[in-house]
């Protein structure tokens, strides 16, 4: 450096360098530090945390705090407007639906199911994606060709058409809908994981592990899998959002979860019939889907940037 630098600051620099040397920041720590600096991601994360907490504890909240039964119909209080004088008086803060059921209670209960389907669906989708993708990418050859053919075929039917066909035949419950979503949606994750595995497959550390006699399974799970984790978190976040959207579409068209079990999607099913009398029915649960998916997408983008190894800060 130039000779006119203050010697004091030079000493400070050396100290700093030593600290970095001994406490070097790991890949994950650096990622999360970057994520913390991104205000949009942090807002999304906070909103999502609140949503998860209130929907996971929805039965308790409905029972002990709101004191409502989300499945109890009451024709005398149909289509009560949210925050109107009578709704506050009777304790139905967000009003009631066309059958007189408490809207807030149903919203919490429905969110619980929508989020659960999104989350578990995405986890299963990715579990399939990672295992098949790693096998295809690692072994290559005919295995890879067969898997590729399956992926191309499945991807050639627009997923909504395929889902319509399957849900019509199987008439799934909330639990089996998760499986159906995973069986239709595994191709995207598999494609990605396969590509990543192929990229890692010829790295020197994999070749040396092979030279030491590691079995293919050990290489896949001990040496390749940890390197897929950061991409997995990104894909998982976006995948949850995507599945929440898909579930809501299917349930909206009475092909997914059927009433009386509420989901954010099927709460909108009859909304068009009550445009004039109960517009809150068309508005609120859709807004919840929108906010949730938006937060998940923004968080997914934030995670992608935070874990991007090519970005230097």
């Amino acid at each position: 450096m130039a000779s006119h630098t203050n010697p004091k600051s030079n000493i400070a620099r050396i100290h700093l360098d030593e600290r970095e040397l001994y406490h070097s920041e790991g890949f994950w720590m650096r990622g999360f530090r970057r994520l913390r600096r991104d205000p949009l991601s942090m807002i999304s994360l906070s909103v999502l945390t609140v949503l998860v907490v209130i929907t996971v504890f929805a039965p308790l909240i409905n029972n002990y705090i709101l004191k409502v039964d989300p499945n109890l119909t009451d024709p005398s209080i149909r289509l009560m407007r949210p925050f109107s004088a009578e709704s506050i008086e009777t304790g139905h803060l967000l009003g009631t639906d066309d059958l007189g059921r408490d809207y807030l209670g149903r919203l919490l209960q429905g969110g619980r199911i929508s989020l659960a389907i999104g989350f578990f669906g995405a986890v299963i989708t990715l579990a399939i994606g990672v295992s098949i993708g790693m096998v295809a990418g690692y072994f290559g050859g005919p295995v890879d060709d067969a898997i590729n053919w399956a992926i191309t075929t499945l991807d050639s039917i627009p997923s909504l058409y395929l889902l319509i066909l399957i849900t019509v035949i199987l008439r799934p419950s909330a639990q089996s809908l998760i499986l159906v979503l995973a069986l239709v949606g595994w191709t995207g994750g598999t494609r990605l994981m396969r590509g990543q595995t192929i990229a890692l497959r010829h790295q020197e550390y994999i070749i040396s592990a092979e030279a030491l006699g590691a079995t293919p399974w050990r290489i896949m799970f001990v040496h390749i899998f940890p390197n897929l984790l950061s991409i997995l978190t990104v894909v998982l976040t976006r995948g949850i959002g995507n599945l929440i959207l898909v579930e809501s579409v299917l349930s909206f068209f009475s092909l997914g979860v059927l009433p009386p079990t509420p989901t954010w999607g099927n709460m909108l099913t009859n909304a068009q019939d009550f445009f004039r009398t109960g517009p809150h029915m068309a508005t609120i649960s859709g807004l919840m889907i929108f906010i949730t998916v938006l937060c998940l997408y923004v968080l997914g983008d934030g995670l992608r940037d935070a874990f991007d190894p090519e970005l230097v800060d």
Partner: protein
Amino acid sequence: MRRYIIRRLIQAIPTFLGITILSYALMTASGNPVRTLSFRPGRTPDDMERLAARLGVNDPWPVQYVRWLLGDDWMRRDTDGDGIADTAIIIELDADGDGEPDPPGTRRGVLRGDFGNSFVAGRPVIDILTERFPATLELSIAGITLGALIGIAIGIIAAVTRGGMFDNVSRVIAVAFDAIPSFWLSIMLLLIFSVQLNIFPIGDRCGFTLEPSCPPIYQRLEYMVLPVFVFATGFIAAYSRIMRASMLDILNKDYILTARAKGLTNRSIWFRHGARNAMIPIATFLGPAITSLLAGAVIIERIFNYPGVGSTALNAALQRDFPVVMATTIYAGLATIIGYLISDMLYAAIDPRIRFE
């Protein structure tokens, strides 16, 4: 280039067969409807069983699949024209076991466009599909054109004003358009513009069947505004994102610097040198665009009562009208294959390296 096209066409065949096998398997999983469908008053269970056997319920499933795919008019034929079948391959001449030869096969098979009759409408499925196709085309051409124009324009402006207000706002909008459930967006637009403000009509394009009385397109533009806009949102999001990234990439190229050094105006640099080259990656997104052009948008067509292929698929599904569901699924698959074929070929035409991979 010709060899590339031929190779891609050959590659599409196993994919298409895969689609037919998958949909056939799913269909059979729901149980064979022949037995229930052959019920008519006055028919004994024995008659129904014979009829079902004649139609092939007892055949092994590969035979049933081939029959469904290629038809049975060549399997059990009447060569001398007396109305009684006399030759049969693959299937038996007397499948129902009553000692008499069965009537000749009449089905032409899915590959020749014979999807059978709709359970609900009682008409050939292929007629229903061809009737509904123009509505889908009308909606999707308008939607994709609007989406591409707006998306590409936003992408260019965002790239040249990088980091500015417009750039940030447009990126937020792109994420929002991705995350918004399109059925909810449709409902909200109807609620605001049709119910509250009364600007656009709610309801049918021209009733649910395409009557000959349906007025020409310029007389019912007001019915198209909302569905076309919702259709376009996805394309606006995708095109603006692709175009922005590609344009930023191009603007860093040396020849842009050269153009600047020559003293060209910004407009000339952005549009003549930048945007024209930045359009190339748009070709990758052409596949999905062609697919939705042909297969339509299930959600939008349904909510806005647009009698296109997508809403036909959904209505058939809700009514459990399996022949129509099968036909729309295979049709959508075909649309996807065609979309990617065209997009790949365009890409190979633009970038010659692809042909030799």
